[in-house]
């Protein structure tokens, strides 16, 4: 009989990046890399668990931009091209490494095998639509898929417009329902950003639970009796689950956490930079800029520039040991907490999905081992989704979480500082203008309706927290600035065209083609 529960939450998100005006665009690689290294391997793990009769439970957010990219035919074609090119490279790598260090050859074979499987899963098993794959496991009752803000807007900094916050939630729920066949029961608030009163918007959109960082619950408006180990209800009845700092840190920390083990694959050392230019030329950016190819042959080794060869088999053993250690710690944690609390605790362990496979190459395998070990090697901990917990334990304490995020230092500094604060003046004004026009035009003609809907798309795309995050991080800043400015400019041009009764239909057609997210959006979300 279990003494408590563990709830893994994987937050899968990337900003909407799609450039039909170019044959290839550098930042589209964010999506392609995550497809090959995270999303497809995760689906493969789920299939394996299902095949082996392991009864698992996971919660996963698929954000609206990610769902939109996974189901977009242009990006599906481009990803297929990316995948085939890498498959070709993997053949070349097997040849190239044949007479070198045996570990390099072994690693090249491993990459070839993975890419071969990825191609089969993507092209044949799921018909190029990974959302169908995730939906399959949702319908099988193994996966709780939740939504997120429509474009991952950091809601505490958008709250000067109630309509803007409401639209982020409403548009997201509608898109989720369209692709997954039912309204989402839960939401991953973008960056775990919560502010007082947000729960009402969530409840009105049928959301029943969300996640916050630990301090949001602990500093809530009433003292939480069980800390973060039981959900709390906001006044409207939406449940807030607090992140378990202990299990999160064990994985999240780059230094002390599992991903920093010297045996694991090094993220930075890549043949895109190491090998002869002419050899890698077809697999890097078309303008000749060297980029990562995903073929990496060295392990972390230590704090040194000298990197030892990567041994995939040894890394697998270590991942299995790390999984055992994680299970051991959760088991002890649950046994201790259930004893102290007198009721089964729920440990909520949320992670960025892209941590697994992309940053931490062996992370997906680690997750696989953890799930299997929890199912087979002990009885104290049971995997459970937050919704299942609420159905089993519908009585919980009422606490409204405090304003917070899961970003560095726990609040809004990452998304509002000297590098990115200039965006909010524009985002807030755009939200005001959107509401103004949405209220002014209740029954527009077809052209005007198209323009108003496109304005809503441009506003939502500009609100993505990723742009502010990237401006703060210092890498690919120009792209984040470009995207923000482009959406602001397009929005304002449409606004003045509408105000001046001079719609430019060619311009509208062009940006509908470029920014085609949310094809069924209704601008009246802003009234």
């Amino acid at each position, binding site marked *: 009989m279990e003494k408590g529960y563990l709830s893994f939450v994987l937050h899968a998100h990337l900003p909407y990046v799609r450039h039909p005006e170019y044959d290839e665009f550098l*930042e589209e690689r964010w999506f392609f890399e995550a497809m090959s290294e995270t999303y497809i391997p995760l689906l493969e793990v789920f299939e394996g668990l299902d095949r082996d009769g392991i009864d698992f439970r996971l919660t996963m957010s698929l954000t609206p931009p990610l769902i939109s990219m996974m189901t977009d035919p242009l990006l599906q074609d481009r990803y297929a091209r990316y995948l085939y090119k890498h498959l070709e490279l993997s053949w070349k790598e097997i040849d190239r490494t044949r007479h070198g260090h045996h570990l390099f050859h072994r690693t090249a074979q491993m990459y070839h095998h993975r890419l071969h499987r990825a191609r089969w899963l993507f092209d044949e098993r799921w018909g190029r639509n990974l959302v169908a794959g995730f939906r399959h496991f949702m319908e099988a009752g193994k996966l709780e898929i939740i939504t997120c803000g429509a474009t991952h807007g950091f809601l*505490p*900094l958008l709250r*000067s417009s109630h309509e803007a916050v409401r639209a982020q939630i409403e548009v997201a729920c509608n898109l989720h329902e369209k692709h997954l066949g039912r309204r989402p029961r839960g939401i991953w608030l973008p960056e775990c950003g919560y*502010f007082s009163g947000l729960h009402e918007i969530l409840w009105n959109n049928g959301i029943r639970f969300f996640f916050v960082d630990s*301090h949001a619950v*602990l*500093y*809530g408006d*009433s003292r939480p*009796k*069980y*800390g973060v180990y039981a959900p709390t209800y906001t006044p409207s*009845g939406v449940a807030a689950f607090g992140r378990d700092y*202990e299990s999160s*840190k064990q994985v*999240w920390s*780059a*230094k*002390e956490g599992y991903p*920093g083990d*010297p045996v694991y694959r090094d*993220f930075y050392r*890549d043949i895109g930079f190491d090998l002869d230019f002419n050899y890698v030329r077809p697999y890097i950016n078309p303008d000749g*800029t060297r*980029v*990562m190819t995903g073929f990496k042959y060295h392990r972390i080794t*230590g704090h*040194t520039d000298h990197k030892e060869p990567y041994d995939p088999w040894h890394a697998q053993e*270590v991942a299995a*040991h*790390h999984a*055992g*250690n994680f299970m051991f*710690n959760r088991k*002890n*944690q649950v046994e201790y907490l259930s004893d102290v609390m007198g009721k089964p605790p729920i440990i909520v362990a949320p992670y*960025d999905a892209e941590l697994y496979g992309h*940053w931490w190459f062996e992370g997906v395998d680690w997750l696989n081992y953890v799930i299997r070990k929890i199912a087979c090697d002990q009885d104290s901990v049971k995997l459970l989704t937050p919704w299942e917990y609420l159905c089993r334990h519908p009585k919980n*304490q*009422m606490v409204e979480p*405090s*304003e917070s995020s899961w970003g560095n*230092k*726990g609040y809004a500094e990452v998304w*509002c*500082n*000297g590098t990115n604060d200039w965006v*909010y*003046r*524009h985002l807030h*004004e755009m939200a005001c203008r959107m509401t103004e026009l949405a209220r002014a035009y209740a029954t527009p003609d077809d052209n005007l309706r198209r323009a108003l809907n496109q304005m809503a798309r441009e506003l939502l795309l500009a609100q993505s927290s*990723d742009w502010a*995050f990237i401006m703060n*991080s*210092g890498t*690919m800043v*120009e792209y984040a600035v*470009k995207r923000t400015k482009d959406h602001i*400019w397009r929005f304002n041009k449409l606004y003045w065209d509408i105000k001046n009764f001079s719609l430019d239909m060619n311009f509208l057609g062009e940006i509908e083609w470029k920014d085609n997210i949310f094809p069924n959006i209704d601008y009246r979300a802003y009234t």
Partner: protein
Amino acid sequence: MGKKAAKRSGGIRKKAAVSTRKSSKKVSSRKEAEKTKAKSVKRAVKVLKSTRTPKPRAKVIAAKRPKVKDIWSLEELIGKVSAMEQKAHEERRIEESKFDIGVPHNGRAKPTFDIPHEYQVDRAVVLTIDPRFVFTYWEVKHESMHHAVSRLGPGAKLTLRFYDISANGNPDASPSWDIEVFDRLGNWYLKLDYPEQILCLDVGMKNEFGAFHRITRSNVIRLPRQALAQPGPLKWMIVSPDGQKIISDVEEYTDADLELLKKILGPYFFDLLMKGQFASISGSSLEAIFQEISAFRLPMEISSSPSSWSSGAR
């Protein structure tokens, strides 16, 4: 610290390793960005000296903690701070990795057109950055300034008037303080004295006699709580799967509840909570955390530390 604990912490250190390799160009661009960011924040931040008495802080409950060294040499402090900065940097790198494709920028990433410099509105907005820090931006129209000058005289200057409306919610009957600014469009970072403060501001003009003419008023914000809430009744609610809600019972908060929370969190985290430092766990020592957890949860011969296990694996 016992021998076993010392061994564990050594193990953690040995295990801690992540690649530091990055292209030098990338490292320098990131460093430059951080430098610029630090400079701009420094320029923007104005710490206001207030005469108000800070609210009493939550009573700190003494937890059993290992003896802490009180006096550190400058060299030790520099080492500690740089280690913490390095750690925060490492953790940020994981989050940033999904946008890392090995190049710092894209040559095609140029904005198509420029964006509006101003919107011809009178507006002021305050945003919460953290429990003691806010960001505000404003814009006032030329004609609004002319109108104000016509009422106050040519010596009038653009002024931000902040109100602490925590006591009564009414700006006109609350303590306020002014900051003279020079730009019709601008922004400001403001450090405040205590969390949970309720705040708003007026942008207006003030003349040499102190007369103030308001042009626009901002939204109202309440800074986040940074401490455990005051003891109060615990309310319980039942929400059925179909959405029916009922407040089932209310119980008094007792010392036993606080003791329970302490047991749940463990002394280390409880101490952080009571100090109002729970939100910055990333800056705390994980070695200490793991030792603490092991010490209060498990017998000494069994370790939950990843190090004891991983050192055996190799």
